[in-house]
């Protein structure tokens, strides 16, 4: 800042622009550092610093004259946010992310609304504003619905009805039409509430047909929408920092959802419009096939006498909160000289990386968590594949049965292990509603029971073995 012009306004302008660039750089560095667990915490600190810079420099801008509302809002938000982060158990991270996303999207939607009623902008600014408001409001309701489904306050099965896709597209088209009408004639204030309502309805409709198993994709996608909304806000308010960070966020959410889609071998549109799980009721109605079940004692004998065990956790582990017990099991097996590894499928659980977080919470060192592509080659040499609360991600139908709804989805090749053990509460199919032929294989032992109590017993029996 070595500007020779001593004008106060120009000086302030330069300072906050420079601070904005620094803040944006902080966010980019933060994302870079997130790529490794070693530097990730530094990344978070950097992002916090960037956010602090952004807030402080914005407060210094000369347009900002009244502070009591801002300070009050910041304090109140912090008062809600701190307990939300600190008291939330780790198994509820997906829900928390959804609700927090709803908050973020609400903010950008409301800002769009407020800006509209404040300035009645025209042309490009107005169009950006409408994009922001549309994405903002639809993300609000969509996130709330996702929260409801994740928290099991709403049925997690897809809800579909005839002509749903057309109806949804119709609502979207109506929203866009009203939006364009507003851009043409910004002073037509009657239309704005209609627009908001349509966006809200579309958000609900977007999530209703999506089943629990697709939640990881959807959460990532909503994250992307929230980011894009902030980006559009940047164009509407002519604020570069908002554009940059919004775009960062939008692209990161988008990539994550693409990764998730790939991990399930499904196309984007399929996830968004596909009612998954209502087609295959006929397939499951086949004859009662024989299964082999075992007690904890028998299972423990096998585990203790094997030389390598791969544990495959799924959503069931999260529901039963069994991660600590699993770590104990892994410890006591390791003590007996058994090599224990964890195989993590990219879409196990309800959000990207869900299993990693849970196992990390239980103090499982992260170098034991192996990704799908790296571990699949090892199953042939594995004595026991222990599946805890996972189903579709180990279903060989994805490879063998081209008619299966999950055909082509990459799976963990648990069926190649010498023995497969499945801890499960009952024979009910997984979230995709598909029967799993793995359960009927000769080398498969079904261990029926709640994951947590069963693993507890296993730990006891292994120690005794």
């Amino acid at each position: 800042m070595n500007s020779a012009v001593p004008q106060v306004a120009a000086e302030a302008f330069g300072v906050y622009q420079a601070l904005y660039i620094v803040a944006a750089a902080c966010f980019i560095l933060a994302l870079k550092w997130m790529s490794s667990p070693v530097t990730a915490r530094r990344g978070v600190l950097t992002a916090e610093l960037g956010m602090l810079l952004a807030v402080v420099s914005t407060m210094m801008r000369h347009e900002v004259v009244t502070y009591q509302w801002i300070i009050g809002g910041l304090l109140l938000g912090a008062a809600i946010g701190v307990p939300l982060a600190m008291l939330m158990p780790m198994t509820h991270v997906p829900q928390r992310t959804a609700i927090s996303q709803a908050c973020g999207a609400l903010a950008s939607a409301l800002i769009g609304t407020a800006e509209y009623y404040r300035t009645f902008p025209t042309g490009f600014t107005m169009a950006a504003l409408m994009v922001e408001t549309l994405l903002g409001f639809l993300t609000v309701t969509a996130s709330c619905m996702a929260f409801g489904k994740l928290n099991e306050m709403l049925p997690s099965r897809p809800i579909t009805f005839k002509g749903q896709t057309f109806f949804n597209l119709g609502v979207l088209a109506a929203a866009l039409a009203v939006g364009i009408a507003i851009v043409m004639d910004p002073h037509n204030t009657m239309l704005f509430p209609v627009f908001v309502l349509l966006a809200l309805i579309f958000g609900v409709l977007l999530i209703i047909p999506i089943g629990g198993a697709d939640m990881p994709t959807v959460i990532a996608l909503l994250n992307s929408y929230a980011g894009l909304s902030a980006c559009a806000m940047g164009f509407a308010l002519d604020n570069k920092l908002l554009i940059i960070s919004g775009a960062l966020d939008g692209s990161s959410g988008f990539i994550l959802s693409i990764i998730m889609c790939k991990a399930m071998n499904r196309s984007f549109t399929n996830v968004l419009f596909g009612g998954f799980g209502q087609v295959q009721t006929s397939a499951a109605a086949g004859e009662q096939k024989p299964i082999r079940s075992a007690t904890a004692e028998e299972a423990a004998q096998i585990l203790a006498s094997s030389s390598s065990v791969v544990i495959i956790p799924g959503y069931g582990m999260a529901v039963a909160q069994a991660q600590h017990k699993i770590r104990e099991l892994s410890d006591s097996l390791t003590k007996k000289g058994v090599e224990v590894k964890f195989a993590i499928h990219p879409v196990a659980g309800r959000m990207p990386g869900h299993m990693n977080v849970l196992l990390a919470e239980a103090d499982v060192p992260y170098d034991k968590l192996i990704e799908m592509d790296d571990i699949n080659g090892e199953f042939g040499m594995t004595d026991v594949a222990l599946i805890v609360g996972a189903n579709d991600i180990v279903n060989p139908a994805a490879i063998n049965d081209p008619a299966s709804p999950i055909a082509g989805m990459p799976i963990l090749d648990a069926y190649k292990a010498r023995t497969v053990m499945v801890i499960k509460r009952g024979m009910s199919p997984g979230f995709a509603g598909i029967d799993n032929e793995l359960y009927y294989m000769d080398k498969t032992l079904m261990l029926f029971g709640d994951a947590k109590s069963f693993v507890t017993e296993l730990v006891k029996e292994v120690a005794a073995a």
Partner: protein
Amino acid sequence: MLAAFVGFEMIRKVSPLLHTPLMSLTNAIASISVVGAILISGAGDSPTLSRVLGFIAVVSATTNLVSGYLITDRMLKMFKKREPAQK
């Protein structure tokens, strides 16, 4: 956009191990909209409606911001390499 491209490159490198913390971090970064909220609610010429909406926006953006950062950090604290002294 350049930022989008940079974001693309960054995320591709992130291992699936850290997807959840990554999501909650980008989630927190999305609350950069607090900047817009501050501009709206602090501007001298805002009508009451905009001011009220701006205030709610500041509250919800801050909620997202604070809880997003705290929980990301809490999660990352748990990711550690095996200690040599671990029992």
